[in-house]
Structure formats: structure tokens, C-alpha cells
């Protein structure tokens, strides 16, 4: 018949398990390709997410309005103000004459950052080696505030560096880790690993568990169980199509990152792929585990959404720094597979570090994969309950 067409004879010679496995996978691809909307979402989602995080929701701050209170008015303060103005991040919008104006300009809402210089600024640098400078931002948005102060600090310390070198005096610089590896402060650099961690988990865990739950809901699982097909094959052949889609998505993400967003793959490409494959297997194992527990598509969706997606977004360090969170949340973060994956991808892709930098993560992810696979195989039901 049409299903096998020309290759039918060859297929008939195969062991029965193999034939069942192949036709099952074929059926899965029919399900996916005939559901045009889901298919489109699966393939376009990574692109959309990358663009969204890379450009729209970026914490990159440009053209922030700056106010300055400068009682010193000397050549050091002027030089710093000029430097601040000279880049994209800040626009000097007001020179304050009274300290009590500071609160007022924040209330008016235009100003993102106020810089307050100490008195006799230049003199202090030259004589005591210590000058006072205060950076004031709106703390209601801590992420932006941190970013703004980081930018400003970076600019100020670069000035300090100039002064100290020209005067040939020993100096100290406190390096900022975040800036060191992302000197242009591009948001995309931080989000690419995050999006990878999210998309792969979404496709593998969520879609696999939903598609198995659908068989249960439709009643087809009953027929499949009452058939010679080995139950474990039913489950494994469900995972194959989503494995393929994940590989497609991984490729799309890497291509977009490198060629459109300009995020380099600084480290080992081989280890990046190996790491991602392990993470994909891990996500598939999680999907199988969820599908072993639930019977309906809705619950599969909720569990994979609540238990997998939300923690990835909030606790994996992809959007919010985990270091500032309460201890409880930090512990949860430690057991999130995505957190380990994202850290390792950052090390490989952006920091350009070698294999030795991701050994911990690699071991952790492999361990988790074996753990989840073991539970889901143990939990897998050969009957309806």
C-alpha cells in the first residue's frame, strides 16, 4: 500500500520491532506536519524569542538622561562629564545647582541617573588619591539601576585609569566581571544561552508530554497498549520527532545568533553541540516523566509550563541575577537543569572558555539525564493505571 510504496519489500525483511518503530515515527511526523499552526509555532518560536529578547526586552540602556551636580567645576569633573556624554548611553540633560534639586528631578521622571561630585574633586585626586563621587538612580527598577551604575562606573574608572597612567602613579582597578566579558554590553549575549535553554526544554519536554497525553485522551493509547508493540517503543518513538525538531531549532538559534545578532561562538563548537545534545536528552526524559504521570493534555501543558518554563525564566539567571535572591530560590535554581546548561553555554559561547570550564555542568546534566530517564522508565505504565 501507499504507506510503504516502493520500499515495502525491504521493510518486510526488517525485524518487526523496527518496522513498528518506523511506522510509528512516520505517524508522528504526520501529526506534526498536518497541524500547520503548531508546526509554525514550533519552528518560528526560537526566532521570535531571540528577536524579542535580543532587541525588545533588552536591559541594554541607551540615551538615558543624566543630571549632574558639580560643586567643584574643575578639569577632572569636566573631563568625566564629557566622557559620559561622549557615548550612546547617556545624554546630559541638566546641570543642578542645589543638592536639594536631586529629589525633584527624579520625581519629574525624565532623569535616569544623577552624578554628584564631591567638593575640590581634582585636588583630592592629586593629593589624597581619593575623591568623592556619588551615583544616584531610581531603585524601583533594580535591573536598570544596576546596569546604569555599571555603565557609569565603567566610564569613570576609565577616566581614572587615564589620570593615573599619565601621572605614572601605581593604581588599582576593581574589574567588573559582567563588563569584562561583554564589553559592548549587548543584551543578546546574555539572552542567547537563555533562549536556547528555554526553547529546547519547551520543544522536548512540553511537546512530548502533550503528544503522549493526547493519545491517552483520544483513547488510542488503549489500542496501542493492547497490541504487540512494546510499550517502551511507543514512548521512544514519540520522542524522535521532537528530537529532530530540537536539532532544527538549535541550528536556527546558532545561525541567527552568529550571523544576525553578532554573538560569536568563542569556545569549542564540538563541546557546545555535545552539551546541547545531553540537554535535549534530559528534556526528553523530563517530558516522558510528565507524560507517565498525567492523563490529559491540559495538565501536561500546565505542569511543563509551571514546573519547567517559569523557573527557567525567573530562576535560571537568564533574566534576573540569581545572586540577589533569597536562599530558598537559590537552592531551586541549583537544581534546575536549565541553569547548569545556560552557565555552560555562556562559558563556551561567550567567554570562550575550554572544556575544563564546563566539566561540572556536563557531569551534572549527564547525571540528571540518567536520573530522570530511570524514574520515567520506572514510572511508565504498561496498563491504564
Amino acid at each position, binding site marked *: *500500500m*501507499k*504507506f*510503504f510504496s516502493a520500499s515495502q519489500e525491504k521493510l*518486510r525483511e526488517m525485524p*518487526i520491532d523496527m*518496522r*513498528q518503530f518506523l*511506522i*510509528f515515527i512516520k*505517524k508522528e511526523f*504526520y*501529526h506534526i506536519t*498536518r*497541524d500547520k499552526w503548531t508546526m509554525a509555532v514550533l519552528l518560528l518560536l526560537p526566532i521570535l524569542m531571540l528577536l524579542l529578547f535580543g532587541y525588545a526586552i533588552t536591559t541594554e540602556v541607551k540615551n538615558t538622561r543624566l543630571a549632574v551636580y558639580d560643586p567643584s567645576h574643575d578639569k577632572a569633573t569636566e573631563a568625566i562629564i564629557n566622557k559620559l556624554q561622549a557615548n550612546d548611553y547617556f545624554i546630559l540633560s541638566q546641570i543642578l545647582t542645589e543638592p536639594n534639586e536631586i529629589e525633584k528631578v527624579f520625581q519629574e521622571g525624565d532623569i535616569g541617573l544623577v552624578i554628584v561630585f564631591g567638593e575640590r574633586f581634582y585636588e583630592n585626586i592629586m593629593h589624597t588619591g581619593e575623591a568623592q563621587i556619588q551615583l544616584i538612580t531610581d531603585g524601583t527598577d533594580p535591573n536598570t539601576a544596576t546596569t546604569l551604575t555599571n555603565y557609569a562606573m565603567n566610564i569613570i574608572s576609565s577616566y581614572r585609569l587615564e589620570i593615573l597612567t599619565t601621572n605614572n602613579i601605581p593604581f588599582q582597578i576593581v574589574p567588573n566581571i559582567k563588563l569584562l566579558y561583554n564589553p559592548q554590553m549587548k543584551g543578546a549575549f546574555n539572552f542567547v544561552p537563555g533562549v536556547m535553554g528555554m526553547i529546547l526544554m519547551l520543544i522536548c519536554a512540553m511537546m512530548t508530554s502533550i503528544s503522549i497525553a493526547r493519545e491517552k485522551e*483520544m*483513547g*488510542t493509547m*488503549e*489500542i*496501542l*497498549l*493492547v*497490541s*504487540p*508493540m512494546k510499550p517502551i517503543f511507543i514512548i521512544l518513538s514519540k520522542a524522535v520527532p521532537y528530537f529532530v525538531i530540537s536539532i532544527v531549532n538549535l541550528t536556527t538559534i546558532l545561525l541567527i545568533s552568529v550571523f544576525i545578532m553578532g554573538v560569536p561562538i568563542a569556545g569549542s563548537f564540538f563541546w557546545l553541540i555535545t552539551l546541547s545534545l545531553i540537554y535535549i536528552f534530559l528534556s526528553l526524559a523530563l517530558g516522558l516523566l510528565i507524560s507517565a504521570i498525567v492523563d490529559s493534555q491540559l495538565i501536561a501543558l500546565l505542569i511543563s509550563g509551571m514546573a519547567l518554563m517559569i523557573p527557567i525564566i525567573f530562576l535560571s539567571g537568564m533574566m534576573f541575577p540569581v545572586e540577589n535572591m533569597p536562599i530558598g530560590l537559590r537552592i531551586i535554581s541549583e537544581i534546575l537543569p536549565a541553569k547548569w546548561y545556560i552557565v555552560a553555554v555562556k562559558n563556551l559561547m561567550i567567554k570562550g572558555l575550554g572544556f575544563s570550564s564546563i566539566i561540572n555542568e556536563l557531569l551534572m546534566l549527564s547525571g540528571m539525564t540518567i536520573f530522570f530517564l530511570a524514574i520515567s522508565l520506572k514510572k511508565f505504565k*504498561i*496498563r*491504564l*493505571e
Partner: protein
Amino acid sequence: MKAISVNNIYRNYGDVEALIDISFEVEQGEIFGIIGPDGAGKTTLFRILTTLLLADKGSATVDGCDVIKDFKLIRNRVGYMPGRFSLYLDLTVEENLNFFATVFNTTIEENYYLIEDIYKQLEPFKDRRASALSGGMKQKLALCCSLIHKPTVLFLDEPTTGVDPVSRKELWEMLKKLKQQGISILVSTPYMDEAEMCDRIALIQNGNFLKIDTPKNIVNQFDNILWALSSNRMYDLLNDLRNHPKIKSCYAFGDSHHITISTDNFLLNDLNIFLNEKGHKDIEISPIKASIEDCFMQLTN
């Protein structure tokens, strides 16, 4: 060897007892009907016998294999059509059939003679997605899929529910042919009038078997006097009959009402007079033989 043998199967879901110590046997090549309304425990019984559920107590064999120990053997041999339509709606008729043929390690050609009669009706629509078939056609496709590997025992859970009378008749004709091929069939239905198509039936209600016998014997064992009545005002007739002290039960049965009488010394003529007094016209009363539905209602009351 019996096709199916069930010994004191008991199963509950929390407080609800779905099956209470059920025992029965199905002979080789027999059509055995489980007749009863929704919620009587039919589906639970089917799932236990097809190895999908475990009974809390009792034992059962299908085709000589134990439903717990030899579940793999059973899964290789039997055909099962669950109650709700359970094929892939986004696959075509032919793709569905081919998929199940391969899963059951066979091809459509190999056992085509078994499904030929039904599949001929489906053939004009073979490239149509299953979702676009009518209820009757879907059931025919599901039957084909459960037959494609020539099972020794066929389990059909409510194959005719929601199916129109014509398609229902066709499905039953099909089952008769399968029986001739030596396939044993366990079939459930809520339609009492289908009971006579079975060799033997079990009437089931609230997890209990009320009776197991041939349809003929069950009908013959009906031990009440049964009359069928009609008049020009059928709804009033129903109420008038219910209020008569000597009438034990009265139910509407299509174009007539069926009543059972509590004493022997109540004559057809007495009833005629009573109804005339109530103002009924065109009164027709005749003693009749019970149907399975009459028996079911007598057994459940």
C-alpha cells in the same frame, strides 16, 4: 479451552463498586453480549480482560492466557475496539488501517478477506481523514482496524452507540460473518434490541450480572403475565394504568404500553371495562411475549 473465562472478578474505584464478583465463560466461536446501560461496569470489565486494568480480586483467562501473568501473549492475540472512537482523526482511512496493520505485524493484504465486506464501503473514502467520516463509518473503520491481524478473541465495547439503526444492523451482520471465521466475540451494548443477535448474553446493572443465558431462555423465564395496550390517548393511558391497583408495572414501549399483572384473577375484559370508563377509545389489548427489555426492567425493579 474457553475463549474467555472469568472467576469472581471484583473491582472498585474508591467508594464506587464497578464490578462485584462477576463470573462467566465464553465458548470458542461464540458471540457473547454484555447488555446494560452506561455506568453498569461494562467498560471496566473490558479493560480488565484486555489487560489494561487489574482486578482487585478474582482471576480471568483469555484464549487460555492469564490476564495478569500472560498479558503480553493476550496483547498479541486479541482485537480490541474501545467504547469511544479511538483512531487517529488526522490520518486518512487508509493510513489508519495501514498503521494498525504494521503495529500488529501484518499487512492489509494478508487478512483482507476478513475486512473486505466493510472495507468495500470505506474504500471510496480511503483518502479522507478519519475526522471527516460520519459516526457509522468511523465505527466501521475502527472495526476494520481491530480485525486486521485476525484476532482469536474480539472485544467490542459499545460498537453501536450513537450509530444509526441501518449502520447498526450492518455491524451486527458483520459480526455474524466473523463468528463463522471462528473468532470469539465479546460485545457490549446499551441497546436491548441487539441482544437477540448474540448467542448468549449477560444482563448487567450496577456492577452485577442479573442473568446469563441465551436470549431465548431469558425471555422464556419471564414469569409474569404481560399485556400490550394502546388507545387513542397514550399518555393518559399510561397514568390511568399506573393508578390501577392490580397492575404491577406499566411502561411505554413504542406504539403500546406493556403492563404486568399482580394476580391471576384479572381478566383482559376487566381492564377493557376499566379503560372504557376512563373514556379511552380504540382500545387494543393483547397478551404478548416478553422482550429482553421487559426482562431487564423486571430484573432491575
